[in-house]
């Protein structure tokens, strides 16, 4: 096994809240609270979680777009958490971001060709001729016509804008691309076009993806490995096959059962694992397991003691007291 493309250890991102009263205690939003992950080269890690669980904070921290509170990040063996200035800028060539909203992530006053070329200009890659050639190549690669380089973002549809976003991310030939909900703003019929494009580009260019989504169907289609996040922590991580054939954490199970299925319809809806309420506040997370207040099988210990992420089967990690291991086979407390 080679060293992973991306390795994160005990990463923490806390946002300090502004105090209106100078004597009030300092409060912090624990957006990312001790996350460790690794993504192998050429593979896709699917990161799943509900809104507010810290997925986007984690993604932004990895690309050093938000200050990190603690922990380490390595890209292809190089620590990037302490880099700054020119060294960080050079590192940015190797990692790029595809944003969720194809409407607000493109400058409405710039022409499409210039948008795609802008990373090359900013990072000082190539000269005018090679940049233009590279932009033309990228337009072809993402399925846009060359003459569309002269258009403005409003002249493109949502799916085409996302293609522009992808072309821009590909421009500096990155190795790691963080895709933050790349299809959730798109119509269903357009989603499959973009997902197929991302899959094809990965195969052609050996890209490594961190693929963030709240849609488990999409993650099942795209990811090689899956990590589930809840309130700033990873609660389960496993290979795609292990995760989808035997999800262990009660939250993962609830999440999977909450997705309406075309085949199952009402019969499946009736057997659904029901979660009450909303996730607790990340400012004052509960002392024990963070999922305990909503968990249908939580016991006294869950409310008092924080479970650790433990290895229940080779490569299948879960943060739950109630997962039992019998003859080497872990079983979920919820069935």
């Amino acid at each position: 096994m080679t060293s992973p493309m991306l390795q994160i250890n005990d990463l923490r991102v806390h946002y300090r809240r502004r105090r209106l009263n100078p004597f009030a205690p300092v409060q912090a939003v624990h957006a990312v609270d001790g996350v460790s992950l690794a993504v192998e080269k050429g593979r896709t890690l699917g990161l799943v979680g509900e809104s507010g669980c810290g997925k986007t904070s984690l993604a932004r921290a990895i690309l050093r777009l938000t200050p990190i509170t603690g922990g380490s990040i390595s890209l292809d063996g190089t620590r990037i958490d302490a880099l700054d200035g020119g060294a960080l800028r050079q590192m940015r060539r190797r990692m790029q971001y595809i944003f969720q909203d194809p409407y607000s992530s493109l400058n409405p006053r710039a022409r499409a060709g210039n948008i795609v070329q802008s990373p090359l200009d900013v990072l000082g890659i190539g000269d005018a001729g090679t940049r233009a050639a590279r932009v033309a190549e990228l337009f072809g690669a993402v399925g846009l016509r060359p003459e569309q380089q002269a258009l403005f973002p409003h002249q493109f549809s949502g799916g085409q804008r996302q293609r522009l976003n992808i072309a821009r991310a590909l421009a500096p030939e990155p190795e790691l691309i963080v895709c933050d909900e790349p299809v959730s703003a798109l119509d269903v019929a357009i989603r499959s076009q973009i997902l197929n494009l991302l899959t094809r580009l990965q195969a052609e260019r050996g890209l490594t993806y961190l693929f963030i989504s709240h849609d488990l169907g999409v993650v099942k289609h795209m990811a090689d490995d899956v990590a589930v996040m809840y309130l700033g922590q990873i609660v389960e991580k496993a290979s795609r096959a292990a995760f989808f054939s035997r999800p262990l954490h009660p939250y993962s199970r609830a999440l999977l059962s909450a997705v309406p299925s075309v085949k199952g319809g009402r019969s499946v809806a009736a057997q659904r694992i029901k979660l009450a309420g909303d996730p607790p506040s990340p400012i004052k997370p509960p002392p024990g397991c963070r999922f305990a207040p909503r968990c249908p099988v939580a016991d006294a210990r869950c409310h008092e003691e924080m479970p650790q992420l433990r290895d229940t089967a080779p490569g299948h990690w879960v943060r739950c007291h109630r997962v039992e291991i019998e003859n080497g086979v872990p079983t979920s407390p919820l069935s």
Partner: protein
Amino acid sequence: MAGEPLLSVEGLCVEFKGARGIARVLNGVSLSVAAGETLGIVGESGSGKSMTALAVLRLVPDPPGRISAGRVLFRGEDLLQASTPRMRDIRGNKISMIFQEPMTSLNPVFTVGAQICETLTLHLGLRGEAARRRSIELLKDVRIPAAEQRFDEYPHQLSGGMRQRVMIAMAMACEPSLLIADEPTTALDVTVQAQIFDLLREIQKARGMGLILITHDMGAIAEMADRVAVMYGGRVVEEGTTRDVLDHPQHPYTKGLIACVPDLDQEVGERHALTEIPGVVPSVWDLQQGCPFADRCDEAIAPCRTSMPADVVSNGHRVACWQRPGERA
């Protein structure tokens, strides 16, 4: 689902006037929903789903929009002929609507309680303590914990799911006989979506209310709807019972829509590329004669581009496609 339909829409057309002439946003939409029944309307953005809902309530902005043809029969009464005061009485009272964005459809400067009380005062004449008591009852009905306390809170103090519950409580204030829910869970997480669906089902069962659920999610349709209408380019291209349409889709667009969604039920084995529907929904200004889907359809034949196919109905399953003449019953 026999018996008199609660709402029946016949040949509804809506036009918008713009710089490029007149655009037909709805082109002969026919639908019906019975009491206690859920009709799902599914389609991509721009297919006319929301416009249908707005037209039923006569909320199409006029000008530039105009309902140019058709009938909207609510318990036999044509709403398109109704007077403005009569419509005001029907909206919110007999037919209620909840919107997609629970963040923007509540007024941020009034408490949640004040906004529910307003509905009660306008339609039922309840004031003061009576309105407050009824509002708290409604909040309890939609399973909002600590309803007395929430009554005095502002929308920003509530989570997205809570806000959508408040919207449902407001819509339920006058015990409407028809509820139109326009993408009620699109902005919410799946676990919260499941809670809202449960709530809607419960309320519907308890009150025998008709429900029109507008969504782009086939899974939500499978779970909630008794019947489904698939819309494209301002027309209903296929309609039938949910199981029938999902298991045996006839129209190429419906087939594509079902096939292009990554399937969570699929075995974990090999993965293959997703089915794509090429191209995008045509702009309302570019709609040509013929079937609006013809340009994206891989089964298109010559007549598809020249004239719109008529509806073919067999066993309550309606489809508008030139490729399906054989099934004419």
